[in-house]
């Protein structure tokens, strides 16, 4: 629609022909008629005043318009009064639709008559031109062009004459107010036109006000909503937010109060550094000055003096002509706790895993013991029994019988060793005593004195850690096995040198036993050193039980044993006792 500056509302009717505006009654000078005219005028003005008051006072604009149309209709004794509102169709053409209607004859205001929706102005050229130029339009239907769509609409409404007043809201052609007479081709008096025009202007003003009000309301609502959103956002953030000017807090959210225990009023004007634990203040000050904007962890101080871990992140922002700093405080106690918990669980899982691995290794040990050390001799026993049964030779029978005894003893020994090891593994809560390394070692050394003399071995000891909280019999057994081992696997023609040492390493008590004996080819036998009945030497005394028991005793007490060795250079066994075993 072409935008035009609306013409000044003149009250001049726009129609096919000029209209007589003078009242016939006035011309006649008839007193009674004049009086009547005055009465009508009075009634019109009072109706206009009342309708206007409705528009101003009634908060419900629709109701006010409805009442106004009725008042005006009754006062002008017109048959119908209506209000049309314009709108753009989807195709972009300007259309108009009936919004309100008052009918003198209540039977006419039925739904069927109230249709008149989305009437296209481009099909109603007659009214479009004057109305959008802000001029009223009057016409008697008989004068309308016969085939005009507008005439058809009006005729459908059974109207004989129409009077339309445009309603402009600001510069916009909002719609129009109309009056219809279907009883006769009504002429409108000046006063009537003035009153109707005035009311149309009032309605237009009220719409304008309504729009402004609703826009204001919306703006206010938006402002409130935006404020609300901002507040919600602030409060919903997990921490505190403070605006500060060189440390002095200008504004903050509830979160900061919650975190620090200071009230909002106490926080405003407070030096933000007071929220930081003393040790961290220099760091924070330096970061404020340098404008550091990455998150970092600090210890914070609550009003009650308690400390808590916080992650802070500050950013310089322009604010009312200067630069202030907005700082966010996030309580990371939970995060730290969660992290610690995860670490703790990981450690526990690692323990479980190593425990499982140890158990698995032990099971493998047992499987091997059962298959080799028990199944082997039992298989022999079965074979020997059948040999015994098959032969008739008494000599052979005696031989088989002796072998049967040997095999039975082997099974018995292995079985006892197995039971011994099972006991060690089972009774991890075996009673511990505070045991002296020197005393126990001396006892063990005496047990081997004959062998030591025979081999001329140099056995030395240095116990920097003198005592240990450990089962006495285990310590004795460990020292005994290691000494026995060292003496057993000595090299020919070389004087055995065996040293026992204890010391502390990384908080653990460590026993180190070194010899200059045969050593072990760890590349070949490393995986077997501590297995039952593993001997790596074709040695008459090699039985291969000592180290297996030793390993089990050490591990049952929560420690570990390792061996370092090279063939023909000797071996060093290192027992790392569990730290819990220290007195």
């Amino acid at each position, binding site marked *: 629609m072409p935008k035009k500056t609306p013409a000044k509302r003149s009250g001049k009717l726009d129609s096919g022909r000029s209209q007589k505006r003078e009242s016939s009654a006035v011309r006649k000078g008839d007193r009674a008629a004049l009086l009547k005219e005055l009465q009508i005028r009075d009634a019109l003005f009072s109706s206009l005043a009342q309708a206007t008051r409705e528009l101003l006072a009634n908060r419900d604009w629709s109701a006010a318009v409805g009442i106004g149309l009725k008042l005006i209709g009754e006062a002008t004794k017109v048959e119908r009064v209506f209000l049309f509102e314009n709108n753009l169709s989807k195709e972009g053409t300007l259309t108009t639709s009936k919004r309100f209607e008052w009918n003198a004859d209540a039977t006419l205001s039925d739904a069927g008559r109230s249709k008149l929706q989305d009437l296209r102005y481009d099909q109603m050229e007659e009214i479009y031109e004057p109305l959008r130029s802000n001029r009223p339009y009057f016409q008697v239907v008989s004068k309308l062009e016969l085939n005009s769509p507008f005439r058809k609409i009006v005729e459908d409404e059974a109207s004989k004459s129409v009077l339309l007043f445009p309603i402009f809201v600001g510069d916009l052609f909002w719609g129009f107010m109309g009056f219809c007479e279907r009883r006769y081709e009504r002429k409108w008096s000046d006063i009537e036109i003035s009153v109707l025009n005035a009311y149309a202007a009032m309605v237009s003003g009220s719409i304008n006000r309504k729009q402004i009000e609703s826009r204001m309301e919306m703006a206010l609502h938006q402002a409130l909503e935006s404020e609300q959103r901002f507040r919600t956002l602030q409060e919903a953030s997990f921490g505190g937010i403070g605006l500060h000017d060189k440390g002095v807090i200008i504004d903050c959210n509830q979160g900061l109060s919650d975190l620090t225990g200071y009230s909002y009023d106490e926080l405003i004007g407070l030096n933000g550094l007071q929220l930081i634990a003393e040790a961290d203040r220099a760091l924070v000050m330096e970061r404020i000055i340098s404008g550091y904007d990455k998150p970092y962890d600090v210890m914070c101080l609550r009003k009650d003096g308690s400390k808590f871990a916080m992650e802070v992140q500050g950013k310089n922002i322009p604010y009312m002509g200067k630069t202030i700093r907005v700082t966010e405080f996030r309580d990371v106690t939970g995060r730290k706790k969660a992290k610690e918990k995860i670490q703790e669980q990981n450690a526990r899982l690692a323990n479980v895993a190593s425990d499982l691995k140890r158990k698995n290794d032990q099971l493998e040990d047992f499987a*091997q013991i059962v*298959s*080799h050390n028990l199944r082997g001799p039992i298989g*022999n026993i079965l074979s*020997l029994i059948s040999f015994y049964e098959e032969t008739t030779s008494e000599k052979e029978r005696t031989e088989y019988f002796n072998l049967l005894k040997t095999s039975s003893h082997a099974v018995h020994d292995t079985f006892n060793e197995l039971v011994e090891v099972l006991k060690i593994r089972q009774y991890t809560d075996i009673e511990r005593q505070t045991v002296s390394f020197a005393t126990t070692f001396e006892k063990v050394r005496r047990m081997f004195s004959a062998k030591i003399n025979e081999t001329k071995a140099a056995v030395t000891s240095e116990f920097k850690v003198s005592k240990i909280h450990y089962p006495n019999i285990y310590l004795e057994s460990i020292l005994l096995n290691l000494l026995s081992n060292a003496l057993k696997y000595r090299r020919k023609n070389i004087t055995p040198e065996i040293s026992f040492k204890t010391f502390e390493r990384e908080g653990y008590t460590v026993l180190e036993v070194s010899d200059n004996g045969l050593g072990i080819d760890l590349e070949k036998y490393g995986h077997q050193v501590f297995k039952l009945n593993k*001997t790596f030497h074709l040695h008459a005394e090699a039985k*291969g039980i000592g180290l297996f028991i030793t390993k089990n005793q050490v591990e049952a007490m929560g420690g570990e044993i390792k061996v370092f060795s090279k063939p023909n250079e000797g071996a060093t066994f290192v027992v790392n006792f569990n730290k819990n075993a220290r007195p």
Partner: protein
Amino acid sequence: MRALDRRPVIALVDDDSIFRMIASRTIKGANITEEILQFTNGGEALRYLEKNFDQIELLPDVLFLDINMPQVDGWMFLDDFEKIKSRLSKSIKIFMVSSSIDPADINRAKQHKLVNDYVVKPVSKETFVKLVNLAA
């Protein structure tokens, strides 16, 4: 199956002297052979093979190998045997014999290219006969 021109030579590699005695008597009792070599561990057996690599009559046709032995065990023997195998004037069939029923041992033995089969102790007369015939 081809009948051997002569009685086979059999080697027993096992640290268990009672088992060696039982196996030896079982083999002889089954009339398989009288030629039985006995070694108490893999090292001893290897030294013998290396020493007699060109003495075809002295080399075993079949070798029964234990797994668990001191010093050079069954697996180590196989590692070293591989290195000397090509120099030997006789192809030797190896059977692993152990009391181990550990599936890890059994699978490893069955999958080993130098091992013809795995036998669980005790070994019956029938099994010895069957294995020696298989090797022929």
